[in-house]
């Protein structure tokens, strides 16, 4: 009967109940792992996603160069995004109304537009402006497109950081005779960046993955980044392994990055 069950449960001590809940959680985990392990067709998985001969092919055919290109595409875009994003954040907090409007419009526009469309527009820009070309093609195009989309997100993050710095900091700086610009640059912004370090890392990681959209602008084989590189190798061999391998190479960037940022956070916390 259900009432006796409920009564028995009521008699459990809190510690016992906690233990029982924990037991259920472990049981679910084990069950899922066992089900996945037994139901999955491992032979098929191994052959389609992790074929050893294809892994070797991928590693020997320039995945390192593709990795380097991913880093170059992202690094340039992030620097651009950080600079523009900071300016936009300051514009959004400006006392000049048109600046606030402009920054808001920019942010809403580029945050809402799919990155792939921005890439497309920048790659075909000479259609609108004859003889105009973005330098360092296609790197310049990617830095600009990826950076502009990123800056919209980064601007909001930095704005939150600036607002997160206690007002007293500005007031103290001003009372020491610092002009507003200097107070912002020397006192508020450094503290703001410290606050937004974790969300900024997120933006960077998203950007690393968005760099996979580079294929849309048209690239030569020595300009391939990881995804395009993996896709092409996959298509020409009718096997997905190269794309999976290329995918794992993203972790090679993001995992060390996470470690570095965690160190920076700790150092920042200590210096406070």
């Amino acid at each position, binding site marked *: 009967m259900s009432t006796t069950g409920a009564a028995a449960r009521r008699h459990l001590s809190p510690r016992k109940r906690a233990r029982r809940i924990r037991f259920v959680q472990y049981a679910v985990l084990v069950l899922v792992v066992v089900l996945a392990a037994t139901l999955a067709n491992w032979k098929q998985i191994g052959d389609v996603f992790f074929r050893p001969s294809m892994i070797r092919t991928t590693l020997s055919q320039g995945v390192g160069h593709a990795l380097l290109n991913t880093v170059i595409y992202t690094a340039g875009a992030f620097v651009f995004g950080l600079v523009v994003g900071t300016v936009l954040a300051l514009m959004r907090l400006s006392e000049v109304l048109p600046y606030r409007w402009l920054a808001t419009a920019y942010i809403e526009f580029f945050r809402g537009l799919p990155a792939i469309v921005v890439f497309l527009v920048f790659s075909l820009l000479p259609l609108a402006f004859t003889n105009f070309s973005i330098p360092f093609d296609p790197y310049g195009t990617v830095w600009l497109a990826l950076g502009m989309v990123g800056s919209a997100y980064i601007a909001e993050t930095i704005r939150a950081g600036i607002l997160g710095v206690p007002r007293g900091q500005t007031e103290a700086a001003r009372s020491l005779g610092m002009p507003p610009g200097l107070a912002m640059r020397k006192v508020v912004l450094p503290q703001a960046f410290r606050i937004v370090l974790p969300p900024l890392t997120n933006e960077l990681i998203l950007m690393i993955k968005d760099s996979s959209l580079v294929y849309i602008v048209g690239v030569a084989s020595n300009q391939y980044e990881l995804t395009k590189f993996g896709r*092409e190798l996959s298509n020409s061999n009718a096997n997905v392994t190269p794309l999976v391998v290329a995918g794992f190479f993203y972790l090679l960037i993001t995992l060390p990055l996470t470690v570095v940022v965690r160190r920076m956070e700790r150092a920042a916390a200590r210096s406070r």
Partner: protein
Amino acid sequence: MKILKKGTLQVCTHLPYKPFQFRDSSGHIVGFDVDLIELVAKRLKLKQETVDVDWNQVTSGAAFKASKCDLGMGGMTITAERAKSILISEPYFNATQAMLVKKGSAYKSLADLKGKKLGAQSDTTGLKYAQDHAKQYGYTIINFDDFSIEVNAVKAGTIDAAINDNGVLYSFAKDSPTTTVAVEFNTGEKYGFAAKRDDANATKLMNMLNQEITKSRSDGEYKKIYQKWFGTVPGNVNK
């Protein structure tokens, strides 16, 4: 001769494949293939009707076995493999690879592209052709996933030339007069129409279609249709 539906010539295809068959802005199915089939439809005083099916139903012959249509069209490359399962017409189109450039450009062939950028589309015959000759002519291949971006990059001038199927390039150049097809590379691919295999009735219809195509080549009708869809006259390879 027997026809599946009285007064109608039913033609299976898979839409769209511009400019061979596609829906125009008023909703009609039009195109190069449609116009050629219309020649035989007119002779038999039938109304042509397009049946949109899975493409492999045409190439495997399943659509004909299921009596869905009398003929099949769709810019179909003639292969020995396909000829085993369907009856294929005489070649009606030489599907070569072609090179698109900006109008007035000095690039007349791949040999003029040394140190230049040649666009090609992923997983196409054109890309393979470009790769096979890259060493010989010393151009850089720029890889595009989308046809539309590849050809518009020529228009924008971000690449110097683009290689792709002649049909789609001619069609693009016709809509974008600042670009032009500079040269074709014969890869030996030919298009044919399809019908039911080992069927006396279908064979009779196919013979009639072959006659009409041959006749159109000699009386100028083929040239007119070609001009209409590709904005140019067929080269010698198409005669």
